[in-house]
């Protein structure tokens, strides 16, 4: 049984571990290290302690970007999960009731197929599409739909609304995935439970809030973490879709874009790494908080 075990184990692990360490682990370790330097990407590396973090503290764009990330972090999960839960519920138990058996609406499969499709599109391509959908003149889809008498909406070019447009696009793409995810979860809730509740005269709203949501809590938690991580990213969409990349006037700047621009455009690799380190701790805090705050309320199905 033990014959040749170790050569086999080593043979199977060496390539994946080597690749992973070279491109992932080493890169992350270096970014912690570079966060303490003023490296520009060329020449000697000079350690400057926590100076980068001090600079961050006084960087208005950093705080602005952080606010935008938090805006997405709060609204993206809430809105997406709320809408997706409602749609999933309608698909699964929105249909007619027959002798206490509540069924899904007709065509629920077709709806699911359509809703899910945006998930297959690259965020980059979605960003290009919506860049035109939100076009600030009549060539944009929405402005084209508005009556001719309206003056064109600026959408992405309007500082006040640009972030909202980004949020809308992220929601548009995400909802289908979570409808399917929650549908699968609802499908695994025993129909006996719904029947029993329906026999007791529970309305659909009671079913939704008292049965569906508590029993799906685990899945909702996972959804929250996923969407939160997406809210910390948003690079593709901001880089492609926004006016002036992160503009107008920094109105759509996010941390991932700051990291990218500082690394590749402003030759401030050290500073970019410091932002990366901050982002890492933010993500970690968020994931830990989500799991802790929501833990107590979960119910085993």
């Amino acid at each position, binding site marked *: 049984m033990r014959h040749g075990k*170790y050569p086999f184990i080593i043979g199977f692990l060496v390539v994946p571990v080597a690749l*992973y360490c070279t491109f992932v682990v080493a890169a992350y370790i270096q970014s912690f290290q570079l966060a303490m330097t003023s490296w520009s*990407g060329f020449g000697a590396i000079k350690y400057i302690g926590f100076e980068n973090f001090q600079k961050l503290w006084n960087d208005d764009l950093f705080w602005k970007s952080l606010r935008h990330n938090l805006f997405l972090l709060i609204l993206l999960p809430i809105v997406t999960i709320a809408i997706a839960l409602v749609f999933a519920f309608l698909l699964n138990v929105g249909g007619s009731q027959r002798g206490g058996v509540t*069924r899904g*609406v007709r065509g629920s499969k077709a709806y699911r197929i359509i809703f899910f499709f945006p998930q297959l599109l690259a965020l980059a391509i979605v960003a290009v599409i919506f860049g035109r959908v939100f076009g600030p003149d009549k060539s944009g889809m929405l402005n*084209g739909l508005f009556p001719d008498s309206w003056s064109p909406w600026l959408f992405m070019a309007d500082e006040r609304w640009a972030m909202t447009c980004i949020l809308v696009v992220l929601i548009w793409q995400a909802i289908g995935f979570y409808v399917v*995810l929650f549908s699968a979860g609802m499908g695994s809730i025993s129909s006996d439970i719904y029947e029993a509740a329906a026999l007791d005269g529970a309305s659909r709203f009671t079913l939704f809030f008292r049965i569906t949501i508590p029993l799906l809590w685990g899945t909702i938690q996972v959804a929250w973490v996923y969407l939160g991580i997406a809210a910390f990213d948003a690079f593709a969409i901001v880089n492609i879709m926004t006016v002036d990349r992160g503009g107008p006037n920094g109105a759509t700047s996010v941390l991932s874009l700051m990291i990218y621009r500082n690394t590749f455009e402003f030759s401030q690799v050290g500073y970019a790494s410091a932002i*990366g380190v901050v982002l890492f701790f933010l993500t970690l805090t968020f994931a830990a908080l989500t799991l802790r705050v929501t833990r107590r309320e979960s119910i085993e199905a």
Partner: protein
Amino acid sequence: MTNLTSVPGADVVPAPAAKSAGRKPSTKREVNAFTGLAHIGLVFWALVTAGPLIWVVLASFKTNTEIFLGKPFALPQSFSFQTYVDAWSEAHVGRYFFNSVFVVLLSTAGTMLLGSMAAYVLARYRFFGNRFIYYLFVSGLAFPTFMALGPLFYILKNMGLLGTYTGLILVYIAYSLPFTVFFLAAFFKTLPYEIEEAATVDGASHTRKFFQIMMPMARSGLVSITIFNIVGQWNQYLLPVVVISGPGSDQKLLLTQGIAQISVSAGYHAQWSTLFAALTLSILPMIVVYAIFQRQIQAGLTAGAVK
């Protein structure tokens, strides 16, 4: 699924009959109204989902003048495929498309091979350092990819891999490993040990057991995670932007990068219909693939979130 339980004769379910008989008509009306509202909501979202995509296809046949007229969902005055020819050859969508296909084929194959090898060993063999390596992989899930952009760029540069597909494929594989290993290790743990033991008794080597017994048994898990990786890598934008950069990379752009670039130049030259044709060309294959494999794709992409 609750919506499958339309047993004939379900109407005879006894209990509620006596109690609710009196208020049945009103309940029924409430239900119909609810179902109606449900359909309105669902149709609305279906339109919101499909609308922009239909609009893109329509606009790809329009002239600039037509596009600027408004009326986004009006049919184009004439159907000419010239914009598609332009997009395919002059804007190089065709090249970008095949670049993406090439990279994703190799990187997904590599991810699956290396990922399942590592996951299998970590899931089913006890040895010193097993847990350490496992958690090393899993901890990669906690780090945002763009955190280490700079270091990654310079690592590739020092190795001479910048602007090469070799570099990109290796990076794709490396960044796909955490989730692949995490998912497959859990999957391999659930497979029965008896068959494997029988094979050992028959004298099968470890390598042979893996390829001829465990891989076939793990097929459903492998299919899910393969789809997950194909979609994830096909849709990557950040990593190719970092890796496929520098002089001479124009020819090598992937589809996501290419479309983003066409979008920028379309803005300069006001060639919107070419952009829309390019977008249509990049969406259509996804629709075709989705139409064929939609069940597997939905299962594969949600597999990661369902425990």
